[in-house]
């Protein structure tokens, strides 16, 4: 067990053997396609009639960047208002958040904006926020202009993409973009806002995963 990790990996096999783990949370109005987006990303599937999420669903997915592996611990929150109280528990310790709206409904965009505001106020200051304009395949019924959302994202320093869980457009891209933007060398995440906030953890370290050691990643 001792000689494990980077030493054993053949050189140039495309990875220096780092695994970074990040907590990512999805937020947004109900029925904008948060679960579909995650399902597309995690399992490559799409269900036309996705049931509405209860509480928060948990999924994981690993993506490979150039020389490191990023493991996403994804919390897909329910969009319904009655579960709103749960959301802070999930975004508090998160290093990344995707705020989703539906491009065919103006209201969902407004709601997305409130989510962004809430995140900026309450979540970790280093949190990477991405804005996803979902259902881009329904561009005929578009109510939210691309430029409008783009401008808003630039203003607020968000990653922005229009996505479609149905056609898989930009789905992997947005997660990859987040993975790239996440800090991997410094005190990542800074998820110490909540008491249980677990920063990104380096898994190939002996004491990996112990809750106390927050935010030491890939040093």
């Amino acid at each position, binding site marked *: *067990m001792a000689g*494990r*990790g980077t030493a*054993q*990996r*053949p050189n140039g*096999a*495309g*990875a220096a*053997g780092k*695994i970074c783990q990040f907590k990512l949370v999805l937020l947004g109005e109900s029925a904008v396609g948060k679960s579909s987006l995650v399902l597309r*990303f*995690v*399992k490559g599937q799409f269900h036309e009639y996705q*049931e509405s999420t*209860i*509480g*928060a*669903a*948990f*999924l*994981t*997915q*690993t993506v*490979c960047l150039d020389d490191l*592996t990023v493991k996403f*611990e994804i919390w897909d929150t329910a969009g319904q208002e*009655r*579960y709103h*109280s*749960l959301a802070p*528990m999930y975004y508090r*310790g998160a290093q990344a958040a995707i705020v989703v709206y539906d491009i065919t409904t103006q209201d969902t965009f407004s709601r997305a904006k409130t989510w962004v505001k809430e995140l900026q106020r309450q979540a970790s200051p280093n949190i990477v926020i991405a804005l996803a304009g979902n259902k881009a395949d329904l561009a005929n019924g578009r109510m939210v202009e691309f430029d409008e959302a783009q401008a808003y994202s630039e203003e607020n320093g968000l990653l922005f993409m229009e996505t479609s869980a149905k056609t898989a457009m930009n789905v992997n891209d947005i997660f990859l973009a987040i993975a790239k933007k996440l800090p991997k060398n410094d005190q990542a995440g800074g998820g110490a806002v*909540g*008491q*249980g906030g*677990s920063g990104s953890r380096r*898994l*190939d370290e*002996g*004491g*990996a*995963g112990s*809750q106390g050691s927050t935010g030491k990643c890939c040093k």
Partner: protein
Amino acid sequence: MPLENSYNSNMTDYVEVREGFLCPVCMKDLVTFEQLQTHFEVAHNTEEDGAAFRHLKELLGKAKKKILKDPSIDSASSDEGTNDRSRGGATSAFDPSAWEVQEFGASSSHTEYFKQVRDSRVDRFVVETNKLLLRLDKLIVADVAGDTAKRKASEKDIVPWVPDQDVHYCLICGIRFSLVKRKHHCRLCGGIICSKCSVYLPFAYARKLTNPAFALEEPKQLGVSSLPRTGSSGSLNSMTNAEGEQHIRICTECRRLLDRRDQLIEQRTSKPIIVQFYERMKVAVDEVEKGVEVYTEMANSLSLGETRFELAEAQKLNVRLAKLYETIDVISKKIAALNMGDEVAPHAQQARLQRCVRLYAAAFLQERGAQGLRGWAPAAAAVTTSGVDVDPMLQQMSIIRDYIRKAKQARRFDEVQMLQANLEELQVEYKRQQRRLTAAS
């Protein structure tokens, strides 16, 4: 043409060679083609000449028929006045539609002959090369560096030199030796060559050839110094080059044989890149095989509540396995993509091999359940929404508990840990909420 005529008249005494537009019948020179034609038509249009001409034509016609397997050949040959018929046959023979399909003729295999020739040739090469290598071995072992006379003597002792006076031309390029073109002896075959046809063979390269293991000790780029140098055979600089490295003069023929040998050794020892990749992948695969076994044991023991293994250990192993899976995935993808982007596409067989390796790896990963790299989610919790007014916090807690159970079942211990952390968080939050509520009321 007049020139040829005069030439003819002068040379007729010697040889019966005549050129020009000569009449085939009377051998008269007609100077131009037109004149020859008219002469032939006018002077030789007699009955006998005509008959001779027809006879010639008939013969040609028969030959043509024979080639085309005309069954009328026998009857035609018996008939004397077949002039017109044979001519007609000849013209019909040029009509491609009238041709029959040709049968595949007799064939014979020359493979055996080819093998025989090749084997004898290869044998010759091998024998020759072995002889050279034996000599080379002796030459480089005889360590009399510095003492030129002694060295020369020992070299001559090992390989008998061709005497200087016997040779006047270079063995290879055939140039005549002179005061400026000096003679040189090849230390391996003893032949005399010119400076241009000789090269210096460094001892390092020689050692690599005589003892392949030597090459491994010294991975330095070895090669024959390409700078042929003039200088008397006795001078010191014909033994050592600029760097003071020892070398001997050999002819390009011997060099060719040695290079051939070198190539063979290289081919036998060096592995193509795909093999190197594959071996690396295989190492990972073997490691996974072992790791999975241990991991299953650990997981079983842990789920039974034994304390033989620690959870952290199992987690570490799981991560390591995930990495190995990834390694296999990456390498196999590399193999599949090998040379694919090149201008010259890899050979079909090569491409197939690459594809197969990738398929094997993919199948292996799938079989081993390398879900470490794939997304995972606990099966949708069958939430018993016993009333809409259930506190979402409590609801979520039960969801998480269900997730934990499922994650444990799937032996995804790192996920269990995450979920457990979340559950604790929820519990703390819930208690705080309750306290606040009681305080308010």
